[in-house]
């Protein structure tokens, strides 16, 4: 009899505890502060930034002639970036001469990681897809014991090629619409088609030496930013 009473008491206490715990849980749920709704991200573009690569202009001389135009347009912290350029090389080799020339473009997305900067300066990571159309000629002298030297003259009339790029860099506002910055590129997976079987493509405008995988690129750029609407001021978050 005593054990039945004890059993009943313990069951009652257990139910009481469970009810208390449930009540506590309800209390905490009701006291939880309401989540502040995030401000809606404005993806509509505000400006077009157009620039040029200073390094290409400075390098232009006897062995290299080239230019490159760069542009990007903002979609919140994402930027659609396009580069268009041209280069031609005239290289004296140890045993001959190599020339090429062509145009290229790159297109991709940059993601800005400096979202709290009041001047909207950028530190970005991104990717590009590149495409090039070029021609090249090679003349050189081959030598071997037993034979007279042989003078080879070869050309690739119209070669197209593509590659991928991972990019990083900075864009810094200097004054009003004037911006400066750099882009460092890791170029990879070059591919060409349309070359003759007798001459392997050597230097692809926009990419560089085709046999180097990956290959590196660097641009130091000046931009002018053409804005068509004002963006709201950036609220700097303080820790």
């Amino acid at each position, binding site marked *: 009899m005593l054990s039945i009473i004890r059993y009943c008491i313990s069951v009652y206490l257990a139910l009481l505890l469970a009810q208390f715990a449930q009540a506590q849980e309800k209390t905490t749920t009701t006291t939880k502060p309401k989540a502040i709704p995030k401000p809606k991200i404005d993806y509509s573009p505000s400006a077009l930034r157009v620039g040029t690569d200073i*390094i290409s202009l400075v390098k232009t001389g006897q062995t290299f002639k080239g230019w490159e135009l760069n542009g990007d347009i903002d979609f919140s912290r994402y930027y659609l970036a396009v580069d268009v350029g041209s280069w031609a090389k005239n*290289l*004296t*080799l*140890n*045993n*001959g001469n*190599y020339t090429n020339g062509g145009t290229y473009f790159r297109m991709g997305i940059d993601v800005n990681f400096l979202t709290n900067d009041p001047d909207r300066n950028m530190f970005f990571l991104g990717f590009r897809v590149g495409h090039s159309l070029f021609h090249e000629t*090679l003349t*050189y002298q*081959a*030598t*071997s*014991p*037993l*034979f*007279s030297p*042989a*003078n*080879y*003259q*070869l050309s690739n009339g119209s070669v197209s090629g593509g590659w991928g790029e991972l990019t990083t860099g*900075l864009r*810094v506002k200097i004054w009003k619409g004037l911006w400066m910055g*750099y882009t*460092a590129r890791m170029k990879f997976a070059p591919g060409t088609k349309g070359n003759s*079987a*007798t*001459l*392997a493509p*050597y*230097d692809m405008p926009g990419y560089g030496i085709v*046999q*180097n995988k990956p290959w*590196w*690129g*660097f641009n*130091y750029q000046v931009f002018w930013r053409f804005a068509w609407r004002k963006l709201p001021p950036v609220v700097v978050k303080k820790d």
Partner: protein
Amino acid sequence: MKFVVLMFVSLVLASCFNEGDCLISATNYVHFQFKKKTNITTDTTVAFTSITVSNSNSLLLQDSLSSELLIPLDISTDATSTTFIFHRADDVDNPTITATDTLQVTYTKQSKVISRDCGAFTFYHNLKIIRTNLSSAQIKIISTDLIKDPTSSGPSAYAINYQILY
């Protein structure tokens, strides 16, 4: 901040424009090895009285004993085949009995610029025997590309192309 950016730019620029080492794997030499018919793993020494290569007036070698040879392909721009003529003693111990073997090979060529400092070179591929008096059982094709290891020297640096069984 801008000074740091400029410093970074200078450092990256300095590291961008390096030229690679001049390691050339291109060659126009065909590597022959001579093996015993009875045991193809054993070298055999052949007494060559002379070897000639088409489009060349010079003899490659004269009166020489060899178990392997490097013989150049014709490098002329329009050449797509080369003929080798081996004059040899049929019996090493009796050089008065001679034999002549002829091998004509075709190939494809591709020119590549290695770098400005190294220059451009011809790479030979798809080596194929199109004419010979040797039986097919006497010729073992090892590699159809002409290539050498630029880091070592001597015949062993060259890829073996054919083993001829005597």
